[in-house]
């Protein structure tokens, strides 16, 4: 028997697999495919203070081994997420979830964080300071250590639940941002968000995506993500949720060896709705193959 259990700031997960924000909606729709209670947790669709339609379409472009999206934080707003989406999810998912929060000002981050702090089935707040698809806000907070510190600090002061900061890879040195978040009081870090990218339609000779560029994710970014998790693990003491192109149980183990305490699966959900289920089911056999008895023991093992 192998042990899959892990924990994030005292929140126990039966396994480290978490569908990533923005690739799993508010979770309940995937229960049409399988019993989602097997998931370690779920990171909900990025939520803002006010409802957002998001960006114009087309919002999607395909790449070799990946996808570019420019959804632009479409969500019904924090009030509706709490009053409508969370109860729908609670009917089909009995574990606690991770609320993913975006904002355009410090006040907005704090506003949403306080709301989710009081939501029963939310156990971790994931603060997204790395959305590449909105002007101002989003990534603007995640590309300077000072701003990253300020957001972390403001949110931490306002809430009781563990605060994880989701970092952007679109920076010169992610370690500096990670340290700033740790100094600001972050309980953990999530990385990486998508890399900025674009495609051009040869027939139209214009960008495929209406907003021109978007966030690139999928297996192509896995080595980039792995390296960043590896580097950040050496820089901070707080736990890391590793993500970026994870598409197999082997990828999960690699990411944990680099330093992740849990992982998120993103783009892969979009091409295979059973992605997380298959990875969870494959994990024990892959662990046995590599003589791993307890997943917790391998965190950061590659250092």
């Amino acid at each position, binding site marked *: 028997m192998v042990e899959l259990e892990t924990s994030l700031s005292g929140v126990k997960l039966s396994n480290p697999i978490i569908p990533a924000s*923005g*690739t*799993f*909606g508010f979770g309940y*729709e*995937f229960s*049409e*495919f399988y019993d989602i209670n097997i998931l370690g947790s779920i990171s909900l*669709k990025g939520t803002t203070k006010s409802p957002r*339609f*998001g960006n114009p*379409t*087309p*919002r*999607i*472009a*395909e*790449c*070799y*081994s*990946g*996808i570019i*999206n420019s*959804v632009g934080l*479409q969500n019904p707003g924090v009030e509706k997420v709490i009053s409508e989406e969370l109860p729908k999810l609670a009917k089909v998912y009995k574990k606690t979830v991770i609320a993913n929060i975006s904002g355009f000002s410090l006040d907005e981050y704090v506003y949403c964080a306080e709301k989710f702090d009081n939501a029963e089935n939310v156990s971790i707040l994931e603060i997204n300071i790395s959305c590449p698809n909105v002007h101002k806000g989003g990534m603007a907070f995640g590309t300077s250590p000072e701003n990253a510190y300020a957001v972390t600090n403001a949110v931490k002061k306002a809430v009781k639940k563990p605060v994880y900061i989701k970092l952007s890879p679109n920076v010169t040195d992610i370690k500096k941002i990670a340290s700033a978040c740790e100094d600001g009081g972050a309980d953990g870090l999530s990385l990486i968000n998508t890399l900025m990218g674009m495609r051009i339609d040869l027939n139209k000779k214009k960008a*495929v995506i209406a907003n021109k560029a978007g966030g690139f994710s*999928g297996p192509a970014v896995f080595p980039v993500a792995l390296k960043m998790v590896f580097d950040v693990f050496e820089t901070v003491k707080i736990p890391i949720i590793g993500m970026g192109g994870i598409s197999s149980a082997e990828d999960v183990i690699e990411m944990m060896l680099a330093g992740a305490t849990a992982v998120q699966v993103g*783009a892969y*959900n*979009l*091409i*295979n*709705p*059973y992605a997380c289920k298959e990875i969870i089911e494959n994990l024990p056999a892959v662990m046995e193959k590599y003589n791993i008895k307890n997943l917790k023991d391998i965190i950061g093992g590659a250092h």
Partner: protein
Amino acid sequence: MYKKNNYLVLSNIKLTENIFEMRLKGDTEYITKPGQFINIAINGFYLRRPISVCDLNEDIITIIYKVVGKGTEKLSTIKEGSILDVLTGLGNGFDIELSGDYPLIIGGGVGVPPLYYLAKKLSQEGKKVIAVLGFNSKNEIFYEDKFKKICYNTAVTTVDGSYENKGYVTSVMDRFNYTYFYACGPQPMLKAVYDNAKTLGELSFEERMGCGFGACMGCTCKTKYGNKRICKDGPVLKKEEVIW
């Protein structure tokens, strides 16, 4: 409900210069309405390709697709006997309950395929289906005979006048008395049909999709009834909810 399964390619044949018909054998229980689509994984391409269901017989799904890029080009080279990974049962589909006795079906180009299964279902219900099928030119026409077999009346238009009625579908649709309409085709055609229609009806839209099952929010549009995902809440929208 949706299903992901492997399907056997029974045939994959060229209907016109860039239009292909593929027949897939496998589980069809999750396809419940005409106008729904399937999402096909193609080796070497990250995203699946969403293609509407053209016909359904017990364990055989027929699709008709146009080669528009590298993914569909690769699809067109897949040999019979191959196995494809396909998600089925996607999209809301048309509502045949609302058709009345004389439903008008309007298709343009590669928008015609999903209307074939719709016409079949409606005529099985005893409705007198009127079909107006628009193509650019005579050499692009497909399925005309098949529609003629099941429809009460079938008219074909060609933009260049090389076959039957010269012009767009809207130049012909006024000739008929109909109780409801169903349309699928390029957006300018849908808009023209919407403006010309004398009754209520439904329009099937297209958008670049990520997942095809409602998770990524890649294909959202605004409607009078709120934001809708073309893949999950659509692709069929009621006439009264469409915002252009």
